[in-house]
């Protein structure tokens, strides 16, 4: 008795049940994409880019600043070279 009504229920709600899966997946993908975009926009990965660039340009053993030093230097650079923000 169990499986048949369940299958019938699935038949009636079948379309509903099928939509939840892909829709949920699409929403999850969209949320992940939005999170990626915001993190990129705000510049969270600047340190990773710096390290990758140094290693790619000068070899894997090149000394790199640690994260704290990197961000301090970045701020100091901005102090020296101010960027405009529009109106």
């Amino acid at each position: 008795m169990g499986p048949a009504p369940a299958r019938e229920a699935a038949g009636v709600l079948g379309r509903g049940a099928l939509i939840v899966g892909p829709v949920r997946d699409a929403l999850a993908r969209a949320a992940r994409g939005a999170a990626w975009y915001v993190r990129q926009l705000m510049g969270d990965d600047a340190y990773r880019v710096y390290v990758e660039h140094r290693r790619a340009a000068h070899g894997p053993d090149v000394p790199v600043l640690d994260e704290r030093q990197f961000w301090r230097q970045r701020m100091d650079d901005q102090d020296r070279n101010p960027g405009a923000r529009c109106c």
Partner: protein
Amino acid sequence: MTTTTRSTAEDARDDGLAPDPTLPPTAVPESALKPRWTWQKVVLWTGIALLGGVAWVMLALVRGETVNAIWFVFAAVCSYLIGYRFYSKVIERYLTRPDDRRATPAEVRSDGKDYVPTDRRVLFGHHFAAIAGAGPLVGPVLAAQMGYLPGTVWIIVGVILAGAVQDYLVLFFSMRRGGRTIGQMARQELGRIGGTAAIVASLLIMLIIVAILALVVVNSLGESPWGVFSVSMTIPIALFMGVYLRYLRPGRITEVSIIGFVLLMAAIVGGGWVANTTWGADLFHLDRTTIAIGIIIYGFIAAVLPVWLLLAPRDYLSTFMKIGVIVMLAGAIVIVRPEISVPAVSEFASGETGPVFSGSLFPFLFVTIACGALSGFHALIASGTTPKLLEKERQARFIGYGGMLMESFVAIMALVAAISLDRGIYFAMNASAAATGGTIEGAVAFVNSLGLAGVNLTPDMLSSTAAAVGEESIVSRTGGAPTLALGLAHIMQQLFGGAAMMGFWYHFAIMFEALFILTAVDAGTRVARFMLQDSVGNVVPRFRDVTWRPGVWLCTLVMVAGWGSILYLGVTDPLGGINTFFPLFGIANQLLAAIALAVVLAIVAKRGRSYVRWLWIVAVPLAFTAVVTITASFEKIFSPVPAVGYWANHNAFKDALAAGETSFGTAPSVEAMEAVVRNTFVQGTLSIIFVVLAIVVMVAALVTTVKAIRAGGGENHEDEPVASRRFAPAGLLPTAAEKEIEAAWAQLPPEKQPVSSGGGH
């Protein structure tokens, strides 16, 4: 579709740009670039054109009782899509002619810090956040005095033909020159006189823009304890974020921005509670002069403090909020679809004066809207950091042209929010205190005396609206920001929260506008100081050293005094600071745009004979802007109507003082009259300086252009071409050919993959 896994013979043209034959192609081959018109595309674009056409008809021709806001959205979006797909492609094909086989400066000078090839979608957001600010939010609100149609037409048509063109071309040519600034490009292309004039004009114009934007903030916070509390709280919140990022968790920018955002929301809610207490109302109820002095002091301190402590966190918060706010505004208007009862063309459109801004529709409408359609300041941004981050040449169209279209869309949304208000309330808020007397009765009398159709203002309307948003009074809250905030509050409360939330939404809008503006004030002061130190450094080399604190402090003081004095004059102006000073802001901005377009004209003419027949793409907006701004400047300088001409006003008041009068026009005392004499002197002088500088540059550019056309070209100041070693799609969505090439690159082993920011998605 040809398989494009290996570079074809086309790419191996012997012009030094032959790509590495072991890598996949770095550019879509010319043959695959030609547009392929399938019937689906034809149907799509015909549909867009029809929808846009219908929307314009509804806005421009149909005269019903009201018009629905959704038509503004459709007209704007469809026009932008068509402009982007067709007009910007013409510019790309015939004027810029980008070559993806060439490496951009981001690739050539790649240093992992300033020159980093950045994913185009992320760079779009970056660039948009850099160019967007309070400008497109304020100008259209003031321009609503003329009715909705003139403003809408200029915002949409102007951006497609002028604003986005300027942004795209400046971005592209700066990129070709290794990211050189517009000032440096002006000097190179126009010679020393033109170049120096351009740089001086940029500096002065920047100071004016900062001053007027600060005035907008002052006007929105005057006598508003809730507002002052919320905006003041942004300072400790930013300080906290700065310390958090430096000492606690370096590099967690998104995390700290979310924390900051939550704290901001708490500050807004808290502001409502604080403003209702007696101690809160006493402490935070400040008059406009006090707030102005506060902002001047803040401006100085913020510009000398290290970047990490205050400016950088504010910048992160602003960027974070900009995206969110714009999405929210657009979404709210699309969902709520308010009915607009403002007429298409108002009674003031054909006149010469008006309560919000004086001057006839031509040229002052264009000058008032400024940033929403064409903004010279963007030339400074487009030749700032963005050209150093472009991954491929062909992406400049998406980022430069597309970014400005987005800003124009923000302007349309701001216009819609402002015109969704009752007209009586709109004029009561935006007429100067001199006209309304600053009281509800005065405002009602003034507005009802304007003789506007369908306007019947009652004192109850003004007092209940003020109470609903948690302000003591909304009369003569000029400057555009409070009007936009009220319009936003009206729309948002229909979505979330109802009437009880109106206070929150109103102060949320005031707060984000103040946030954007104060960040721009800080950044603008630093840039101006940098330019000053650089120039003085030519004479006294010590000033070039930015670590020498006395030099930094002195130059900051000079620049803050520069914009601070204008701010102070504006705040104490008896005729209503925004009403008299805003045209200066608009004129300055448009003159800078004319300068930028003039430089671009010279650059294009020098590129060679085949460019001459396409010069009109630059010449038409340049000519229009030049005519508008020179006419506006001349009217401001020479018009005999005191409400319009600065010198006419100056002389009228001077004569009245000399004749021994103790009150004249709307100035009630001798002091007020003297203030007007002083202010109009400054305004008149600045107008003369701006227009002279702009004419110098335009003449220099014309001379250079004519010489270049005669000679069939000119000196090429672009960087040497270097072959590119990477590939990325040109627009938002990759085309089929681009997807193929991307797939080929993805098959490469990881050590051969190019490093970039925004990779790994």
